[in-house]
């Protein structure tokens, strides 16, 4: 991605609603053709961010630049940013053709050009021949695809998707999760994708902007985020467990982290009260690691490729993920969990 041109720059964006800051000093950049996911719990300001970028609301402070041009005084309809709303916002008084062709009509195209654009957009989302359908006769999945086609048809320079799969049931979501990246990459579309679902994020995004309570928590590729979360919030939000309060202090010139289950060396630059993450996917059952914890198997569950164990040590309860082809220990059996503290034990703010 690095050789691509930077197109969108968000600088120190602030938006307040009354006393509360919906967005507080948001900054990030996007490259041409990149798919960036804005990930965060509901109410963290994700939708507000999209509305600010679209020009539907004005920021209290900060800048939105597209290829270096400040968007502050550019009205929504001239920004060329498409936005697909969470509930789709299909026009109920128009049929599928009227909806998908709306943006093209606004560009002042001729009827035959609009018709061609509509067919092309519907082909992309696999809804050929749906032109004359009324939108209230569509299923949830079809509505989602029509909304996507409508956003894509005028070829926006930036496409923003607000929880595009949020309104769909689980089966449909999983199917569209497979289709969506294919459609977007076919167009080489620059996409800002808002979601609260880390699974969606990992499946679709090149890069992730993790938000919490209106602030950027961490920016990175899904891989970086998952393997190296910087804060307890990030770890918890990405579904990681085994988080414990801990203390980092310097002893004999080297940093040590004191956890409820022992004191270990660490390379972190943090000091004082921290959160320790003992990664369940970086522990073994062989008892041969530099460090070993003893415990009794409390629960186990078979998850296809992986086997998840809950192990009760004398101090804490740990969850770990093991290869399922190993001989699984029985519930109640005592096991030895071994790990490399510099590899499996992460110190988070």
């Amino acid at each position, binding site marked *: 991605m690095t050789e691509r041109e930077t197109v969108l720059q968000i600088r120190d964006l602030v938006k307040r609603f009354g006393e509360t800051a919906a967005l507080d000093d948001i900054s990030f950049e996007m490259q041409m053709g990149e798919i960036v996911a804005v990930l965060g719990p509901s109410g963290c300001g994700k939708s507000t961010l999209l509305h600010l970028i679209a*020009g539907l609301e004005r920021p209290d402070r900060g800048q939105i630049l597209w290829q270096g041009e400040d968007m502050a005084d550019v009205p929504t309809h001239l920004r060329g940013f498409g936005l697909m709303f969470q509930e789709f916002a299909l*026009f109920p008084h128009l049929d599928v053709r009227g909806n998908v062709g709306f943006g093209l009509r606004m560009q002042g195209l001729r009827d035959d050009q609009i018709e061609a654009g509509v067919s092309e957009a519907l082909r992309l989302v696999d809804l050929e021949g749906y032109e004359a359908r009324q939108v209230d006769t569509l299923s949830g999945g079809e509505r989602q695809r029509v909304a996507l086609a409508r956003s894509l048809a005028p070829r926006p320079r930036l496409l923003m998707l607000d929880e595009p799969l949020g309104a769909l049931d689980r089966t449909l979501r999983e199917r569209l999760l497979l289709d969506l990246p294919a459609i977007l990459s076919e167009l080489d579309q620059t996409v800002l994708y808002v979601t609260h679902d880390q699974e969606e994020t990992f499946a679709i995004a090149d890069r992730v902007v993790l938000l919490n309570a209106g602030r950027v928590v961490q920016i990175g590729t899904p891989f970086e985020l998952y393997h190296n979360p910087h804060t307890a919030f990030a770890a918890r939000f990405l579904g990681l467990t085994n988080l414990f309060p801990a203390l980092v202090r310097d002893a004999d010139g080297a940093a040590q982290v004191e956890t409820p289950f022992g004191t270990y060396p660490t390379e972190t630059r943090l000091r004082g009260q921290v959160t320790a993450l003992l990664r369940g996917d970086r522990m073994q059952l062989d008892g041969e690691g530099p460090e070993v914890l003893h415990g009794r198997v409390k629960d186990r569950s078979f998850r296809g490729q992986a086997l998840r164990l809950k192990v009760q040590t004398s101090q804490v309860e740990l969850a770990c993920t093991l290869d399922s082809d190993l001989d699984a220990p029985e519930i109640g059996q005592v096991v030895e969990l071994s790990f490399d503290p510099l590899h499996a034990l992460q110190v988070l703010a």
Partner: protein
Amino acid sequence: MNANPSSLRVNKRGTGFQTGWLLWLPPLTFLVVFFFYPLARIFSISFGRGDQGIFSLLLQALTSENTRSILGFTLGQATLSMLLTLALGLPGAYLFARYRFRGKTLLRALSGIPFVLPTVVVAAAFNALLGPNGWLNMFLMNQFNLAHPPFNFMHTLGAILLAHVFYNTTIVLRMVGDFWSHLDPHLAAAAETLGATRWQAFRRVSLPLLSPAIMAASLLVFLFDFTSFGVILLLGGPRFATLEVEIYTQTVNLFNLPTAASLSLLQLVCTLAISVLYTRLAKRIARPITLRPVLLTQKGLASSRQKLAAGVLIAALLIVLVTPLAALGARSFTRYGTAPRGEVVQQGWTLENYRQLSEDPQSSIFFVPPTQAIRNSLLYAAATVLLSLLIGAPSAWALARRTSSRLARILDPLLMLPLGASAVTLGLGFIVTLSQPPLDLRTSPVLLPIAHTLVAFPFFVRSLVPALQSIQPNLKQAAAALGAAPRQVMLYIDLPLVGRALLVAVVFAFTISIGEFGASALLARPEFPTVPVAIFRFLSRPGAINFGMAMALSTLLMLVTAGGMLAIERLRLAEVGEF
């Protein structure tokens, strides 16, 4: 219990059928005797003039120069009034629908008051503000030392139009505003992100979606303006006549019943045509729309430009909708005297106007003390409430139960017909039918409550039906499964759930009765005037005392009707109603 299924089925079908008809019986009988029969008499009197049937008759009426000009004026003023009402109401509806601001609830409540005010009160209010003895003229005369009121407002077309805007703006504010407030703002936003300017987004997305509501509100406003009576009679003066006023004049002043009947028929055909047009349009453009909670669609006024525009709009609404009311209230506490040159002048604050209400100023048999009129009005209103409960409640229940049945589909619009037939037409119908055997009620005190019940009927029923329909069928089924008989379901489920709606309906009936003017003007016996009739008499007579008492009585009536309206508003908070 050893119930055999087939007997159960028979039993169920049997009771359902019986109660269904029993519910329909009182309202139908009532409507047939007191609405359709008088209407039929009007028809037959019209037919009696010519023997070529209804169309030639209408043609005959239309070819008459006089009728044509009256019809032309009626249509013209209604159109103008409707357009002006929309011009004020639509921006107001937008403000109410999309923005939160301080005092909004109060402004909304205030804007609803004019709609429920009796026409005589409206006439009195505009008189108090802009009439020859009104605040404005008084101010100008004092300021510039003038001998005569410089501003001529009464008996102009402007007075009629302004009063109609005053009256009906709230219809647009509410019908359009309520719908608008639930319209997803993301629809217009989506249009903008697709390259539409604000105006394009409004014209191509919001407006088409709002059009059913706008159309419905416009036609209702038009209908009210079309059948306008008191406003024209009292503010327009002798120069202007709508069909409704002409019917009244022909009946009361000229006692030309056949002409009055023909005009009634003409008016009925027009209102029916408007209603049919409305239903057709509504059906064609109605489409399912996902409604959003107001919490998501409204925001505060952000920029200073928005605040300025909102301020100007709020000021306009206040000036048109509230100042006449304030002027009336203030005027009722002002002392009047007659200056040497003969005009009425203001002489400070007093309660004199109210004190005089218990005296008979004219000492003639046709003039009773105003307190007597107040007593009459209260009695009539109580009787109207009682009659409405007896007649309206069963119809609402029947309508809500069987909306899908063919019977209900036929009867539903039929029950709404009294809304289309004007009050004066009702009064005329009573005069031509009920003053002779078999039903000689001309001198009976129940005549007015019956007329008032008919006028209130559509409002009464429409307040109840949505609440009744909103009761989830599974609640009733659950009650039935727990062993409740249909009557017990009604008593323990329906009644508590619709209690508020019932109260709303009762307040409607009471408020409408106490302010009703059109039918009362025709039917009230001279020695038993209602409050609106008394106000009309005082306003039509010269002199400071008459004017003062009209102001005082109007203020009282305004307080009662406005109180009723606010009560309805309060009770309705979480309710659904169609008016």
